[in-house]
């Protein structure tokens, strides 16, 4: 069952299209990564999912219901954290959750449970202004979990965190999915982060989806880059170009391969032509290169 479905979701801002017909499908129980560079429309999509931006009727369905007509019902079962956590800095962590309890008619005993889940029990009485960013993010997650929702929508939850904070957040997200069965929709501009956390993902670029599927499918789909350095790179480039797209950059060969076995084929070709191999390694692609490879045709792809 799909918990989130968007149907040709479009959104304009100031006459400029921000979202151009997005069709998302997020399965129940998954950790779904929503990947895209800054400005690609991730936060706008999340705002639309949460009813913070006006979108046409039936273009967003959560739990099978239209956000336009069943907003309160949907939000009762949806927790969210949009970019940096919104908290009352002049109050304690406990008071922040207490206010939200009173606003949502949630029993007060839930506060202790939530502080424990996000490991803030000892800091609950401290003012939020004294919290580190990591603690604020965790309190933001606690606030999102207040009504024990089935769906969590987290917008860049590791933004600005130090490595320890990122690790804690990753652990927390996995725990919420595995131990509490929450479906988690998480946006990020970091490919490796989404690959580590998510079972499914969608990639957004300039308001359009360029990929949607299992994380493993993405790995198979996009070309990997191989970096090579040989005793004669010009000759090597000519040989490799017969089978794979190749270019020479900064004195090194950059070769686009599709499968792991391609590295062995290249290695054998160079060896048979008596070229010494000084270096042959895969290069992890950044998001921009990945987008290029996902959107470019085969002849352009590298």
């Amino acid at each position, binding site marked *: 069952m799909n918990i989130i479905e968007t149907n040709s979701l479009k959104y304009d801002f100031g006459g400029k299209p921000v979202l151009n017909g997005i069709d998302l499908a997020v399965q129940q129980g998954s950790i779904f990564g929503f990947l895209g560079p800054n400005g690609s429309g991730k936060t706008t999509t999340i705002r639309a999912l949460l009813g913070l931006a006006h979108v046409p009727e039936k273009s967003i369905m959560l739990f099978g219901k239209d956000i336009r007509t069943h907003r309160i019902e949907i939000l009762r079962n949806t927790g969210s954290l949009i970019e940096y956590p919104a908290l*009352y800095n*002049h109050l304690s962590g406990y008071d922040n959750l207490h206010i939200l309890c009173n606003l949502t008619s949630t029993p007060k005993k839930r506060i202790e449970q939530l502080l424990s889940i996000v490991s803030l029990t000892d800091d609950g009485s401290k003012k939020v202004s004294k919290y580190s960013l990591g603690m604020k993010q965790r309190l933001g997650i606690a606030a999102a979990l207040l009504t024990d929702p089935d769906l969590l929508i987290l917008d860049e939850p590791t933004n600005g965190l130090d490595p320890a904070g990122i690790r804690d957040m990753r652990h927390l997200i996995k725990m919420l999915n595995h131990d509490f069965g929450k479906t988690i929709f998480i946006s990020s501009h970091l490919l490796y982060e989404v690959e580590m956390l998510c079972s499914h993902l969608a990639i957004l670029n300039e308001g359009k989806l360029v990929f949607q599927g299992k994380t493993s499918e993405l790995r198979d789909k996009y070309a990997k880059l191989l970096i090579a350095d040989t005793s004669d790179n010009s000759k090597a480039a000519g040989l490799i170009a017969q089978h794979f797209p190749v270019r020479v950059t900064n004195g090194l060969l950059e070769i686009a391969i599709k499968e792991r076995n391609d590295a062995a084929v290249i290695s054998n070709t160079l060896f048979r032509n008596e070229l010494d191999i000084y270096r042959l390694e895969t290069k992890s692609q950044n998001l921009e290169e990945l987008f290029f490879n996902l959107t470019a045709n085969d002849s352009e792809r590298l």
Partner: protein
Amino acid sequence: MIQSVFNPIMRFYAELQKLKNTLAIVVAVALPLFIAFLSFVIYISEGHKLVVPGINPWKGYIYHLQKFWAGLLLPLTIILEASLINSIEHSNNMWKQVYTLPVSKSSVYLYKLLSFIFLNILTAVSLTLFVQLFGYLLILIKPEFGFYAPSFFGESLMMSLKMMLASSAIIGFQFFLSFNFRSFIVPMVIGFCLTVGTGIASSWKYIEFLPYSYPSLSTNRQDAGIWDSYVSIAVISLVFLSAAGFYVSSKREIS
């Protein structure tokens, strides 16, 4: 049934909880205290010129202070409080949190407005209590002024509440501005200009068309009841401005 009564109370209480450790509460209590203290000091030093022998001194003491309060300080307090109470949400970027809660969008405006009205009632009651308190202190310090006479507590409280009711249009307008403007300055400047402008135009024959003058005008007849035409127009204005606020809140997009 119990839930339908209990939930709105808890939502209103949550709005009051947000005021903890904020200037909004301090201003609501400290400003009346300061003004009552100022009046007290003036009476200690210049009271012999202000007290008329044979007339209950409480009357002049309360009237002069309330007149001054209604004409200038009450509108300015409302302007400041409206900005402070909405800045709790603006400065912490809390609107996105508030509008993703499973509550109707227009009720966000309603409960915040109610907490703002509560602050104004608190200010009105504080003013009355502090005026009384310092009046009783004058009995001890300046017994010759005759403050042991009846203190008009009921009348004083009623006049404070009447001034507050007469300022309903200001309450509604300033709250609407502060709710919609992220800037702390814009609603303050608009409110300040309207207050000062009204003060300058106080002898203008059409002054009754300026709602910012209603608190002051409502104090002109001390013997009148709590309800008069100024209060009526001000309260009706508050109702219309609130309806506009509910609509804006229900259509609000959060970036």
